[in-house]
């Protein structure tokens, strides 16, 4: 019994980050029809900025929570700037060109990764713990810090879901991802909505990266492994589908924690890939995808 609770808790904390990550991917795909291979680099930049800023702020005498708070905000701002630059100079010209945008984003991902290695050095960093203590729930254990992380991530995800379901911008985003020409005919300013969608997706990756910074070891290529799993989650759920991204992320998290416990991590990864193949064989556009 204990072990099942523990596995459930593990799945929850892994899944929370994947949900944020894949929500951003699927949103960007839905609105602009681009497969953004550089999404992991937004995530990595946020984590790296937090990892650099926190020790720096502490040196200035800032208390730990203040240092984290400031670093968090700074990281989000930094990533938004990067997102805006990439949108203006690159992705804007490749909307609805799936192959072209993918090729471009592969190049950007490689370039950014190289730059991160140059700027931040390839050393791994570990930050001081923000919140001490461990919580026991029904026999499963989780550090308080990770629990807080999960709760924030889930709140952001739920907030995002609500915003897309009911706000004006959310409705515009959904209209554009269903049929951008019909949306334009209804007077929805496509270009502005595309930019908003892209930046929101970027921000979600940044939140995921910044949240994860205190609990994992951070290196300049941290984005790659999350990117691959985020993509698997989105493909399983159906590109462009928001419930699909959530379902896919949870499935991936369960496979990763259960498979990693009973077998070993690389077998769990193989299992994920096999699952993608099976899902695509049965439903070539993902579980929640249409068409």
């Amino acid at each position, binding site marked *: 019994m204990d072990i099942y609770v523990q596995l459930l808790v593990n799945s929850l904390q892994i899944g929370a980050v994947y949900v944020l990550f894949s929500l951003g991917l699927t949103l960007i795909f839905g609105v602009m029809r681009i*497969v953004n291979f550089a999404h992991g680099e937004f995530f990595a930049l946020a984590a790296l900025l937090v990892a650099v800023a926190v020790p720096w702020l502490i040196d200035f005498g800032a208390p730990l929570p203040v240092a984290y708070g400031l670093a968090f905000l700074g990281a989000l701002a930094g990533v938004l700037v990067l997102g805006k630059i990439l949108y203006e100079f690159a992705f804007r010209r490749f909307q609805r060109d799936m*192959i072209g945008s993918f090729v471009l984003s592969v*190049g950007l991902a*490689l370039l950014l990764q190289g730059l991160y290695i140059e700027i931040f050095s390839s050393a791994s960093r570990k930050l001081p713990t923000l919140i001490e203590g461990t919580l026991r729930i029904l026999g499963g254990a989780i550090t308080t810090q990770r629990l807080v992380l999960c709760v924030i991530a889930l709140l952001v995800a739920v907030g995002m879901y609500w915003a897309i379901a009911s706000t004006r911008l959310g409705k515009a985003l959904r209209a554009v991802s269903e049929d951008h020409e019909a949306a334009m005919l209804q007077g929805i300013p496509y270009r502005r909505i595309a930019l908003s969608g892209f930046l929101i997706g970027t921000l979600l990756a940044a939140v995921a990266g910044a949240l994860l910074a205190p609990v994992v070891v951070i290196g300049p290529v941290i984005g790659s492994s999350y990117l691959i799993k985020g*993509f698997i989650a989105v493909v399983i759920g159906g590109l462009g589908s928001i419930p699909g991204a959530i379902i896919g992320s949870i499935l991936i998290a369960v496979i990763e924690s259960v498979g990693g416990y009973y077998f070993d991590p690389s077998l769990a990864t*193989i299992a994920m890939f096999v699952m993608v*193949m099976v899902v695509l*064989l049965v439903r*070539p*556009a993902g579980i929640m995808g249409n068409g």
Partner: protein
Amino acid sequence: MAKLPRALLAAASLCAVIGSYFSGSDFAANLIIWVAINVLMTASFRFVLLIGELNFAMAGFVGIGAYAGGIATTMYHLPLALALLLGAAAAGLISLVVGFVTLRAKGAYFLLVSFAFTEVLRLIYSKVDVIGGNSGMIGIFPPAYLARFYPTIVVLVVLFFLFVLYRMERSDFGKILVAIRNNDDLVQTVGIDVHLTKVWCLGIASFVTGICGALLAHANNVISPGDFSFLVAVYTLAYLKVGGESHILGAVLGAIVLTLLAQYALGFGAYEHIFYGAAIVIGVLLLPDGLFGLAQRMLPGRRRPEGSGS
């Protein structure tokens, strides 16, 4: 194509063959081998792009060719020609099965699945102890009496398969491939089995890719799972994007230029990521038709009447 370029191409090929023979067995010889293999890999990557799919599984098939060729040489001591053929056949046959399953998906879905396939293969190599697990296979040498001629053999094999791919693209089969990229529903309505055609296209490209893998294994003498990550496909994509994808010569040009440039640039330190990343970004943003398109525009007399490729 006009007579003059054809003569030029023949002359260039002859130079490559002769040059490879006199390169000796040092750095220059290795460079020639790398360039030649990269050229053929890029051409085979482009062959699948004819149906409009980015084939990231290519990196995986290079690995299958390399491991199959390596096993044939080190464990069964087969002749080189047979080892190369086995590498190609293994990659080709596996790709037919994989393609039959994965080519039902297209566009973003296919490229993500092919990407996943490459990464799975890499994990599998590192788990199988017979082929060396994580540390890989060693001692894959061409037979001693052929070692002197190995660069020439590589160049000849590459030239042969480039020609085969070019002829295939020009044949009716090649025209069907391009038609599938443009409008697969239309191709289906005239009674052509689109799915099977795509599978064959991937199979042919992977056969050629398998040869590349086997050639590479015998050139490097050592292979390990890390050599066959999806980055192989990304670098190939860089060659193609910089060279230009509208003609097979674009693939050749891009692979030659970037491989040589990379050798030069890597002298400055570990800038590999930045170099290839920047090459792709610049290629996509500034050179939509690649160096080949640029060359075509510089020679206005030889401009081709048909519209530019996608």
